[in-house]
């Protein structure tokens, strides 16, 4: 699983909020655009980001393998469900191979699927870099800095804090219930699996609700939420670099959208 890794690059030195904002701009652009040129530029920037953040490829290569499998399945599914989607989008039809029935191969379909592939490719790297270079507690504090209500920011930091605990507890409960004969694999019927799942979740829910009470009482006693602002142990001020990166992100978004929608269509069409 992806996790924070200590590092000294300039991406690590950026505030978590800066990276998150950049990531938001990035994913909005990645979602809106279908312009091949914009996506190629974004792909190039991704590779550059990997290089400057000094993320070792071995650390994240398992993700790329998973991703490739997922993309292959999805591209295949698109073809099976709509072999003429590309033709519908680009408005022309260049048949390369006359297949069986409606399953022909057209240049438009190939180009469309290549674009979908590119789109998946540019969505991933920004998320990976955000995860690998951002310290969780620093992230919560910096969210508060960019205007997220501090209760919500604190809820996020609680989530990150309690994920390992919940995970360990779930494993313990699951093992002891399985030792008592609850079957969750394919061998059991669907109804049995669902019932077995409730037998595991029930103790987890009880202990978690108890934990919620303990934590909230402790926080209430310490006066959490009394004041409008709070300080953060791992908070750090924004630097000039942060502002520059945010500006670059916003600029990238505006420029990318402008290029994409200049001709009133989000697709770049090489066929006309």
């Amino acid at each position, binding site marked *: *699983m*992806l*996790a924070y890794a200590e590092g000294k690059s300039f991406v690590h030195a950026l505030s978590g909020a800066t990276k998150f904002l950049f990531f938001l701009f990035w*994913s909005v652009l*990645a*979602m809106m655009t279908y312009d091949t040129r914009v996506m190629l530029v974004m792909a190039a920037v991704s590779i550059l980001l990997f290089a400057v953040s000094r993320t070792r490829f071995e650390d*994240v290569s398992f*993700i790329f393998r*998973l*991703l490739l499998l997922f993309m292959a*399945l999805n591209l295949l*599914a*698109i073809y099976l*469900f709509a072999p003429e989607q590309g033709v519908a989008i680009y408005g022309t039809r260049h048949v390369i191979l006359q297949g069986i029935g409606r399953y022909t191969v057209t240049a438009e379909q190939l180009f469309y699927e290549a674009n*979908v592939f590119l*789109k*998946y490719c540019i*969505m*991933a790297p920004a*998320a*990976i870099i955000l*995860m690998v270079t951002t310290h969780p507690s620093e992230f919560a504090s910096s969210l508060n800095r960019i205007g997220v*209500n501090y*209760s*919500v920011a*604190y*809820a*996020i*930091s*609680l*989530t990150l804090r*309690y*994920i390992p*605990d*919940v*995970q360990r507890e*779930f494993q313990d409960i699951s093992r002891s219930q399985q030792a008592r004969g609850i079957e969750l*694999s394919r061998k059991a019927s*669907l*109804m049995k*699996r*669902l*019932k077995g*799942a*409730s037998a595991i*979740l*029930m103790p987890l*829910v*009880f202990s*978690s*609700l108890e*934990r*919620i009470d303990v*934590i*909230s009482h402790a*926080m209430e006693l310490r006066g*959490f*939420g*009394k004041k409008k602002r709070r300080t953060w142990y791992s908070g750090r001020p924004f630097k000039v670099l942060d502002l520059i990166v945010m500006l670059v992100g916003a600029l990238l978004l505006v420029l990318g959208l402008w290029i994409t929608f200049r001709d009133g269509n*989000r697709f770049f069409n090489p066929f006309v």
Partner: protein
Amino acid sequence: MNKKGLNIRTMVAIGIGAAIFFVLMRFVSIPSGVPNTNLNLAAAILSLFAGIFGPVAGMLIAFIGHTLTDLTWGSGVWWSWVLANTAFGFMLGIFRKKYRIEEGGFGMKEAVLFNVVQIIANLIAWVGIAPSLDILFFQEPANKVYLQGLTAAGLNAAVILVVGTLLAFGYSKTRTKAGSLKEER
């Protein structure tokens, strides 16, 4: 209690709820029998927490939990499904006062309402919002995304119908009923 921000208990519930949601969505997979689809137990927890702590909690649990799941897969955040899940969490919590889970009053009548709401919410989120956003953002073939949405809605509804309802019954039974004390004469 802080009127402007969130109630502390709700806020902690969001944090812990999102952690459970994340663990269930990320690490626990129970094969459903249909290839490539797993029973998503996170939906059951979401329905319970939204039923107890309300729409804002449901919304934030789904949003934080789902975003984190997508981030740690490294596949980029699939905002169309995250937003659908967020709306789903919100809808699940709308009638929380009627369920009376915390007051120990979750009976047959409440269970029926709970499930009617969750099925409608499932349809709106996974057959309405998610595929439409998929088409808007990704321009994927309509029949493909609607089929995916329908599968998700069906599985989610089944999980909440069985697991979510059982959890609500179980938890509500341990709570003291409101007004259960009687004066001795």
